[in-house]
Every structure is written in structure tokens, then in C-alpha cells.
């Protein structure tokens, strides 16, 4: 069989590595693509959600009677409308979770645990009536003191969020009420021995703030629960199947009763994996018998959905003067938000992952506090961890007098290095990213010769002298994930192939998956017609997350293509009245081995009805079994610090990354550039800013202040291709790792510019200025 099929192997490609126009492109540049909020439907009701004004409060009573008596108000729902969850637990793909917690985050139970926590949902004939109705719902609160700082929350005597929570401490259950949900540990070698081998030990503490994914499209959800008990949900989500499973679990109905239709999604970055509005819309639809649409406004997105945690991280590293790291120890406390489940374990996996260090000890804590329940955000947990490690490594580099690139070469992980959580790396490309950064003209360019964007606004010579420049380097790691993907493919008589998949497309994956199918079949990318469909129309597919779609759904598409090719060989054989073994295929051309007859894929497609009928196939893959390729990146950044104001400007940015094999290089570059931009925002000005009562003070785009086009330079993405042995074309996930190095790289650059280090994010003008003033004292 393998002798007959062209298969897929690393080599020269016709489709892979090219830059075709994405299949959904025209719809998106003409405003025709339908996102969740664009849905129109006859008889549609509009819903709004009442949210807690308090960060921590007991809900004594909810009286909706005044709201329900308003003309146009059709229904109000609260957590009491969920079926009793008891102590049910569910496994929704990321470990077991208490159903009660799931429900209580969507509609608060006995307590409101953060400002913005949903309390009740209203359905009315117009959004305005629904908004008015919210004001007429009377909620009696007993306001409780909030705890807003992760270290405070860990202390005995701190306000307790969930009275029945007990710490799971290295597998043992604690006995007293606490906010610490979990204490985990990874260990490798003998940490004491490692520190004994060191000539110098560096120990530092780092703090990062809660930040939001900042997708431009607010959450939305529309539901119709028909009288036959069939529930349909339309929503912008990273995973239609996870929405189905979460909603079915919360409502205690079989998954077969829930159909989720994924609309186009306006950004997610991890934040559109949990559900917020969908179950509320479903409950409102059940009560009214009509479709109900819920939309969030921007403040609700900030206050009521899952950001990524603020953290406190302590890193202790021992090194020898020759630059070798002898020991690495870390202590990480991550904000889970109001319910357990921060990405601290990911932070622990990633914190020293780029380095081959024999002796390691890592402790991690998952801590509840009165902030929104955190959700994944692009390489969850890894960016804060890298900020700590890469800063300490930079200090070691300065102390040892060894170039930052060289110290990474000396200590970098490679094939065979065992990561602290046990995984032994297959072929990885970390050192290749260091070499690419080192060899890039940026690394050796004279930083003082860069055009300064601020210079023209600076009038005096003295001020100009206060524009300080620095170059920083940092690396990053993300493990990427595999999980399950399904697809179906069918050959059309004109030689095109319809590809039906379950992976929602956030950044061009329809095309990157279609290109892999096209490569195997020897047809063009344009001849594949990819379509993302609902949960009743394709087999189970995990979320678009973990940098997995081009890898995992790509594997499914490759297998589908191989199956089509085998069927096409059979059809050609039937047509020519020979055995399948007498037919060979190369790059989409089917030939009689003996010669004399050949048909292109297109020609053969047109004859299928004469030789057996349509060619259709369906595939499902468990991509973890194929071998997920880890992602590594090394970034170089030049900054300008205005010593009078503390403002940091990014002058030049170069990001090198091992991408395995870039299927569509433009979209790979786009992932890198976008991740870097988010990392720059995280580094310099993004944070959840709370007052003492736990009220977010900057819950608008104006005040949260993500980077604009004016804040950034061009971002050069350098694609390093070290093929992943677990994928026929060598694909590695590329989407997440680019956000990991920027805060550390920028911190290291600022340190070079001003001669002192910042260990708190964001490095806002106030903080930078404070550091400069402290230094000069």
C-alpha cells in the first residue's frame, strides 16, 4: 500500500510553504462573515445579565418581581434554575471539575465572589428593556471583606471564599478552611547538591498582574430550547464541543440533546473556552420558549470573564563562573480567581524548560481570591514564569561576564534533556532559535544608530541625552498539545474536495489544514473547500487551543487525504479494469504502472460516477499518540527609555521561533507578531487595576490600554524549521510560545538602558521612573 501512495514526507512541497489567500478571506474583508452577535432570528428575545457590584458578598435574597412586571420582560433566571448539581463532578477534558463550581461561576450561588460575577439573567423584547429590567431586580447583599492579593489570600486569617475548600497538599487533603486549593511539586536531582556546586546563588521575587486576553469581539451566546427538548446554541467559541459538554453538564441533559453551532469567532486566545452566557441563554429560552440572545459589553468582558492570573514567583538559581547553571528552584503562587484552577502547573512545567539543569525543585500554589475565575491565555502560566527565570539568567550572564546568547548555548535543552515533569525531549529546536537570534543582523546592530521615534519631539539636547537605550534577550517555551480532532472529506466531480472539520478557525486554520490535505492529494489549496460545522455534523473535536489545530486537525486531514487517495487508486483500477496494485500515483496524477494510461485527480474525479460513485471519507485522530512538538523561541528587543517620564518605547523587535514546518508562513508570522504584541502590552502597561474594595478601575479599552498601531514597530518573525518527528510534515504548534519571552526580553533591555532591574509587571512609566529615581539616589 505504501508503495502505491505518494504519502507525505518531508521534502519538497507544492502547497506547503506557499501563501494562498485564505478560504474565508473574502467573507471577512467584505463584512459578510457572521459572528455570534450578527445572528438574526425571528421571535428573538434579548437578554442581559445582572452582575455583582461587590467583590465579595453573601447573597441574602433576589427579588425579581418588579422586573418581571415590566412590559416586555419575559423571564428572569438565577442559579436556582440550574438542576441541583449535588456533588456531581465532570471531566471536560482538563481534569475533573465540580459541576457546582461550573454553575456557580455562570450564575452565582450563595455568594458573589468577584465584582462582575453574574447574579441573574433577564430576557426581554429589546436589549434596552432588558437593561432597564436589571435595575428593578432587588438583590440583598451582606458585603464581606474581599481578599485581592495572592500572598494575603494564602495567610491564615484571610477572608475565606469557599468555606468547604481544603488544600490538596502534595496529594494529602488539608483539614482547615483555606484559599489555597492546591500545592504541587516537581523535583529532579538533588537541589541541595546543586546549590553546593554553585559559586553564586541568585534569589529574586517577581510579581505580575492579572491581564486580559483582550479579544476585540465580546462574548455572545444565543440559545433556542425547543418544546421537544432539543437545545441549539449559536456562539463564538474556541470549541463547539466543549460548549456542548459544559452546557449539557450544567443543565444535566444528555449531550445528544445539545447542538452547538460555532459562529465566526473574533479572537479568543484561551478566553473563549469557558462558557458564560450560553447556559444562561439556554435557561431563559426554556422559560420563554423563544430564542434568546445574550451579548456582553466591554466592561462585562473585563470584569466577568476569565483573564490570566497575577502571580508571585520566587526563583533561586545557582551558577558557576563558567556560566553553567547548577541548580534551579522556584516557588510559584498563581491567582486562580474565585474558583480553583489557575495555570500554575503549566507555569511549573515551563519555568526552567528551555534549560538543561540537573537539580531542580519547583513548588506551585493554586490560590483563590476575589477576582474573576481565570481562564487560559496564550501559553497559560508560562509568560510570568519566563519573566522570572529569564531575568535571573540575565543577572547570571552579567555576573559571569558571559554573553546572553552564549549562556543560553551553554545551558540550553536539547534532544534527550529531561524536563522537570518527566518528559524527555524528542528532537527540539531551542538551540537553533538561539543561533538564529545570534546570527541575525539585529543582534550585532548598533543600537544608537536606530532612528528614535521620540527624538523629533524632543527639543533640547539635555532631554535627548535622557533617552536611554538598551537591548534585551529572552527565551520561552510552550509544550503545545495534541488532543482529538475529526474531519470528513468528499470529492466533488470537478476535482475539488470538501473538507468538513470541527476546529473553529480563529487565525486561518481552515487554510493551514486544507493545505495539508491538498499537499497529499496533489491538488491546489484553492481546490479544497474547508468548512467548520456544528457538533451534530462532524465527529468530536477538541478546542482550538494549545497551538493544536494545524498540528492535530492537520493530522486528521492528512489521513483523510491518504484514504481518499487509496479510494481513488481503486477507482482508477476499476476504470482501467486492472488491479489496484497496477496503479501508481504521484502528485495527484494516477497512472497505469505499465504505462499508456493516466488521469489527473481532477479528471478521475469527473469519472467517479462511472466507477463506484462518490468518494467520501471520515477520520478521527488522537494527536497525542503521534507526538506533539514542543515550541521554543528566542527574542531580541531594543528599547528606548525616556528617563524624564519613565516611558518605554519599543524600537526594534526580532522573534526567532522553531515552528517545525511552516504550512502557511504568513499566518505563522502573524501568530508570532500577534503574540509579541500581546507580550509587549503585558510587559509595559496592561493590568487589572483594583481599588481597596476590589472594584476594577480600568475596565474599558481606553483605560486598560492595549498596544495600538502607534505603539509598535514592525515585528520581525524569523521562522526556524526543525521538523517535529511526530508529524508527517514536521508541524509544531506555533501560536502560543511567542507571548512567552517579551516581558522578560523587555525587562532585560530596560535593565541595560537604565542600569537597574524591574521585577514587577507591568513596567509602566511610573514604575520605570521610580526605579530610575531610586537608582540615582
Amino acid at each position, binding site marked *: 500500500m505504501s508503495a502505491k501512495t505518494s504519502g507525505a514526507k518531508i521534502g519538497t512541497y507544492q502547497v506547503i510553504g506557499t501563501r494562498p489567500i485564505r478560504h474565508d478571506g473574502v467573507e471577512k474583508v467584505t463584512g459578510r462573515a457572521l459572528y455570534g452577535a450578527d445572528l438574526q432570528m425571528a421571535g428573538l428575545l434579548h437578554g442581559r445579565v445582572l452582575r455583582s457590584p461587590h467583590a465579595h458578598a453573601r447573597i441574602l435574597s433576589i427579588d425579581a418581581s418588579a422586573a418581571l412586571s415590566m412590559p416586555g420582560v419575559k423571564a428572569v433566571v438565577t442559579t436556582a434554575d440550574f438542576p441541583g448539581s449535588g456533588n456531581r463532578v465532570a471531566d471536560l477534558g482538563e481534569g475533573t471539575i465540580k459541576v457546582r463550581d461550573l454553575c456557580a461561576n455562570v450564575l452565582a450561588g450563595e455568594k458573589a465572589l468577584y465584582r462582575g460575577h453574574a447574579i441573574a439573567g433577564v430576557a426581554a423584547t429589546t436589549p434596552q428593556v432588558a437593561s432597564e429590567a436589571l435595575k428593578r431586580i432587588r438583590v440583598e447583599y451582606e458585603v464581606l471583606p474581599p481578599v485581592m492579593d495572592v500572598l494575603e489570600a494564602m495567610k491564615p486569617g484571610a477572608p475565606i471564599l469557599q468555606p468547604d475548600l481544603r488544600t490538596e497538599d502534595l496529594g494529602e487533603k488539608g483539614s482547615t478552611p483555606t484559599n489555597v486549593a492546591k500545592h504541587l511539586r516537581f523535583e529532579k536531582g538533588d537541589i541541595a547538591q546543586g546549590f553546593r556546586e554553585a559559586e553564586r546563588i541568585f534569589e529574586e521575587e517577581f510579581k505580575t498582574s492579572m491581564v486580559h486576553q483582550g479579544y476585540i469581539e*465580546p462574548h455572545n451566546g444565543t440559545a433556542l430550547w425547543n418544546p421537544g427538548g432539543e437545545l441549539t446554541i449559536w456562539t463564538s467559541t474556541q470549541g463547539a464541543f466543549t460548549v456542548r459538554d459544559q452546557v449539557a453538564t450544567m443543565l444535566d441533559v444528555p449531550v445528544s440533546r445539545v447542538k452547538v453551532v460555532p459562529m465566526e469567532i*473574533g479572537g479568543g486566545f484561551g478566553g473563549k473556552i469557558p462558557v458564560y452566557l450560553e447556559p444562561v441563554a439556554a435557561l431563559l429560552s426554556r422559560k420563554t420558549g423563544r430564542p434568546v440572545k445574550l451579548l456582553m459589553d466591554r466592561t462585562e468582558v473585563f470584569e466577568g470573564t476569565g483573564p490570566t492570573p497575577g502571580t508571585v514567583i520566587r526563583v533561586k538559581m545557582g551558577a558557576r563562573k563558567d556560566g553553567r547553571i547548577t541548580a534551579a528552584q522556584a516557588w510559584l503562587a498563581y491567582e486562580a480567581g474565585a474558583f480553583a484552577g489557575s495555570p500554575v502547573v503549566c507555569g511549573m512545567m515551563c519555568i526552567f524548560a528551555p534549560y538543561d539543569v540537573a537539580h531542580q525543585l519547583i513548588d506551585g500554589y493554586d490560590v483563590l481570591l476575589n477576582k474573576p475565575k481565570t481562564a487560559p491565555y496564550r501559553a497559560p502560566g508560562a509568560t510570568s514564569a519566563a519573566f522570572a527565570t529569564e531575568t535571573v539568567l540575565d543577572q547570571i550572564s552579567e555576573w559571569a561576564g558571559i554573553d546572553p546568547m552564549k549562556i543560553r548555548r551553554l545551558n540550553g535543552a536539547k534532544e534527550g534533556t529531561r524536563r522537570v515533569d518527566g518528559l524527555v525531549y524528542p528532537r527540539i529546536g531551542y538551540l537553533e532559535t538561539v543561533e538564529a537570534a545570534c546570527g541575525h543582523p539585529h543582534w550585532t546592530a548598533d543600537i544608537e544608530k536606530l532612528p528614535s521615534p521620540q527624538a523629533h519631539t524632543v527639543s533640547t539636547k539635555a532631554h535627548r541625552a535622557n533617552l536611554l537605550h538598551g537591548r534585551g534577550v529572552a527565551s520561552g517555551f510552550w509544550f503545545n498539545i495534541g488532543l482529538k480532532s475529526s474531519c470528513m472529506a468528499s470529492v466533488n466531480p470537478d476535482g475539488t474536495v470538501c473538507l468538513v472539520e470541527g476546529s473553529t478557525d480563529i487565525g486561518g486554520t481552515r487554510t493551514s489544514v486544507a493545505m495539508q490535505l491538498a499537499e497529499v492529494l496533489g491538488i491546489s489549496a484553492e481546490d479544497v473547500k474547508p468548512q467548520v460545522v456544528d457538533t451534530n455534523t462532524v465527529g468530536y473535536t477538541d478546542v482550538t487551543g494549545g497551538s493544536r489545530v494545524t498540528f492535530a486537525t492537520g493530522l486528521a486531514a492528512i489521513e483523510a487525504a491518504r484514504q481518499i487517495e487509496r479510494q481513488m487508486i481503486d477507482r482508477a483500477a476499476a476504470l482501467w479494469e486492472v488491479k489496484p496494485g497496477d496503479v501508481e500515483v504521484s502528485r495527484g496524477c494516477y497512472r497505469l504502472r505499465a504505462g499508456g494510461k493516466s488521469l489527473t485527480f481532477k479528471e478521475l474525479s469527473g469519472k467517479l460516477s462511472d466507477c463506484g460513485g462518490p468518494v467520501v471519507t471520515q477520520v478521527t485522530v488522537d494527536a497525542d499518540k503521534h507526538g506533539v512538538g514542543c515550541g521554543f523561541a528566542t527574542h531580541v528587543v531594543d528599547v528606548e527609555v525616556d528617563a524624564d517620564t519613565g516611558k518605554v518605547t519599543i524600537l526594534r523587535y526580532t522573534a526567532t521561533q522553531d515552528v517545525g514546518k511552516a504550512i502557511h508562513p504568513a499566518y505563522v508570522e*502573524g501568530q508570532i507578531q500577534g503574540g509579541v504584541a500581546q507580550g509587549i502590552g503585558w510587559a509595559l502597561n496592561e493590568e487589572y487595576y483594583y481599588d481597596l474594595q476590589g472594584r476594577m478601575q480600568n475596565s474599558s479599552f481606553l483605560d486598560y490600554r492595549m498596544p495600538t498601531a502607534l505603539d509598535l514597530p514592525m515585528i520581525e518573525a524569523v521562522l526556524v524549521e526543525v521538523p517535529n518527528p511526530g508529524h508527517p510534515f514536521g508541524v509544531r504548534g506555533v501560536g502560543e510560545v511567542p507571548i512567552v519571552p517579551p516581558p522578560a526580553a523587555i525587562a532585560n533591555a530596560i535593565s541595560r538602558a537604565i542600569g537597574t532591574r524591574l521585577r514587577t509587571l507591568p513596567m509602566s512609566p511610573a514604575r520605570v521612573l521610580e526605579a530610575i529615581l531610586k537608582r540615582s539616589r
Partner: protein
Amino acid sequence: MKSHLTFELNGEATETFCEPRQSLLEVLRDELKLTGSKEGCNNGNCGACSVLLDGRVVNSCIVFGLEAQGRKVTTIEGLAEGGTLHPLQQKFLEHAALQCGICTPGFLVAAKALLDVHPHPTEAQARAWLAGNLCRCTGYDKIIRAVLDAAPSASGGK
């Protein structure tokens, strides 16, 4: 009570009814079912709802619908002419200048406003003109390149 509104929308005389409190964005999306203009913040901070009002780029979420009375409004749906993509639309596709696509209509409209005023913008001009439009996916690199590359064909070689 709804008010009568007449204006020119994408070159066509248009009339509808709207409440005085409705924003132009709501009139476009909810009354006229033109959902190409997006709501990202509803307070003029993200630019996803950018439209041209008498040729000038505005955030339609902070303009009342009735302010369009008797004026000309251009939305993303009016950018392509006679089945041909506007050069900006074509260049956004060629440069992969969109990922999720939610900010794309606003960027295209704002970029058209830029090219109408500066047919051959510098990178700095493009960045300044587009600073009112937030994109969280691309880091702006490919958007700026697409806009600069579209300039010659958008200006018809002028």
C-alpha cells in the same frame, strides 16, 4: 417613539425608523441588518465600528443614528464596487493582514479614510491614522504593510 431617518448609505438613498437614543451602529446593525460594522467596546475606543460619515471616519457607536440625517455614510459593505474588491481588501487578503477578522471591517474603512486624504502615506502616517483601531491578533505589522501596498492602486497611480 421612533423617528424617520433618511440618508445616503453606500451610495443609495436609504430610509428607516429609529429611536433617538440609538447609535448609528445600532441603526446599521439592528434596523438595516448591515452587520459588517462590529461592536467591540460601544464607547469609541476600539474602532471596530468605524464608518465614513461624509467621508470622515467616525466610530459609529458614539454617533447617534439621527446625526446621519441627510448625510452620506459608507460602511464596509460599500467598499467593494460592482463585485470587485477595493484594493485595500485585496491587499489585506494577500498580506494575511487579518486573523480573526473582527477588527478588519473597521480597519479597512479607517484605511480608506487615510488613503483618501494621504494617497501615499508613510508608515508613521499609517500608524497614526490607524491608532484608533485596535487589533489584538496581528500586532499590526501585516495590516500596515497591506495599507502601504494598497496605496498605489487605491490612488489609481496618482
